[in-house]
């Protein structure tokens, strides 16, 4: 058998036991054969390594199609978890820490009627009395309309203040703000209180910046509700 053929079979693990003996003998007896065999074994080793690399690359490519599917799936899970967490934390924070809207509700109380003492049983009622009676009864819509009318006819600043109070109770904080700002420019006994209600109006509107700014003014410029203003400043988120 030719040496080449023996080497070929050796490389491919195809030698018969007899051929194996011949090869073993040649390795010891023929340096040329030995060198030649070694060269082919080197080729086998190098080319196998290269082939393995290519196969690993192929497996990685196949795997990446699976992993991408999983990644997309994972992405959805993560996204869903975040939504859930955000949802949960907002629920929890409502439980732990009141929202600005809730803060408003717990601090806001329409300012009492200090303008028109209501005498029960008095059959004669002027518009002013009707307005404040409505206000005291909690008929804020009616009261607001009457206060507006009275303000136009009398130009008394305190009507602005009570209009705003009625509006805040009616959850119309946005409309209350300009009235309170207008009232603040006037000088009457209630102006001092207006600042506090303005702060609450901003709170209701979730305008934290203005609410805090106004509360600070409550603290520095008035004596009304300073304790509450201080508390609120700490609670506003």
């Amino acid at each position, binding site marked *: 058998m030719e040496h080449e053929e023996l080497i*070929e079979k050796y*490389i*491919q*693990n*195809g030698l018969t036991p007899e051929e194996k003996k011949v090869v073993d003998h040649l390795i010891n007896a023929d340096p040329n054969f030995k060198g030649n065999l070694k060269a*082919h074994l*080197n*080729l*086998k*080793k*190098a*080319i*196998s*390594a*290269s*082939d*393995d690399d*290519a*196969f*690993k690359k*192929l*497996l*990685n490519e*196949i*795997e990446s199609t*699976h*992993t991408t599917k*999983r990644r997309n799936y994972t992405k959805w899970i993560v996204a869903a978890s975040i939504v859930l967490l955000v949802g949960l934390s907002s629920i929890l924070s409502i439980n732990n820490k009141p929202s600005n809207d809730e803060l408003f509700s717990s601090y806001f109380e329409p300012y009492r009627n200090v303008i028109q003492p209501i005498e029960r049983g008095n059959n004669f009622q002027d518009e002013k009395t009707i307005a404040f009676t409505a206000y005291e009864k909690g008929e804020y819509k009616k009261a607001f309309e009457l206060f507006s009318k009275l303000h136009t006819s009398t130009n008394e600043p305190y009507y602005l203040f009570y209009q705003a109070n009625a509006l805040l109770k009616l959850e119309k904080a946005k409309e209350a703000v300009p009235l309170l700002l207008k009232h603040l420019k006037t000088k009457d006994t209630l102006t001092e209180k207006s600042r506090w209600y303005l702060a609450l109006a901003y709170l209701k509107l979730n305008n934290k910046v203005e609410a805090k700014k106004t509360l600070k003014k409550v603290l520095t410029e008035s004596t009304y509700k300073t304790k509450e203003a201080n508390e609120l400043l700490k609670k506003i988120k």
Partner: protein
Amino acid sequence: MEKNHIVSLIHSKPKEIDNLYTSNRDAFLNFGKKYGLDYDDLVDIYQEAFIALRKYAISGKLNKVKSSLKTYLFGIGKYMIYDRLKELNKTVNYDTLKKVEDSIEVVPFETENEELTIEQQLLRSHFKKLGKKCQEVLTLFYSRGLTIDEIVECTNYTNNSVVRSQKSRCIKTLKNMIKL
């Protein structure tokens, strides 16, 4: 073992490998989960086991194996899972392993840690610069262990003398590349 699978492994045609790899992948990951390894570890092990399986196909070892490809592949994988657990814990918690009951027989696999010599490394890097035809014929012969006749069967070469001359020409080119 299924003869067609062995042939697929040896020839390593991407589509056939994809089929074999994918059809057993999820089952293996499920199988491995019982041992408490994480997803990434199991994917790595599955790939290693698959590479080992192919090596056995090429060396002719699978021809004598009686079990199915899946059972054998899982057996190699199980051996590698034990190896990985040993790595992680130093000592395997045999109580946990006892609880894992499956009929898969472990197939030991020794990784060849034999580094390539400098000459072999040189051959490998230059081999990748050879033309596609040369790479193909040399890969089929040296790595896949196909005989010249088998190469004629699975390629466009018309007869074995064409294959032989092509092979010697390619080796000559490769050797010249290294000398330069």
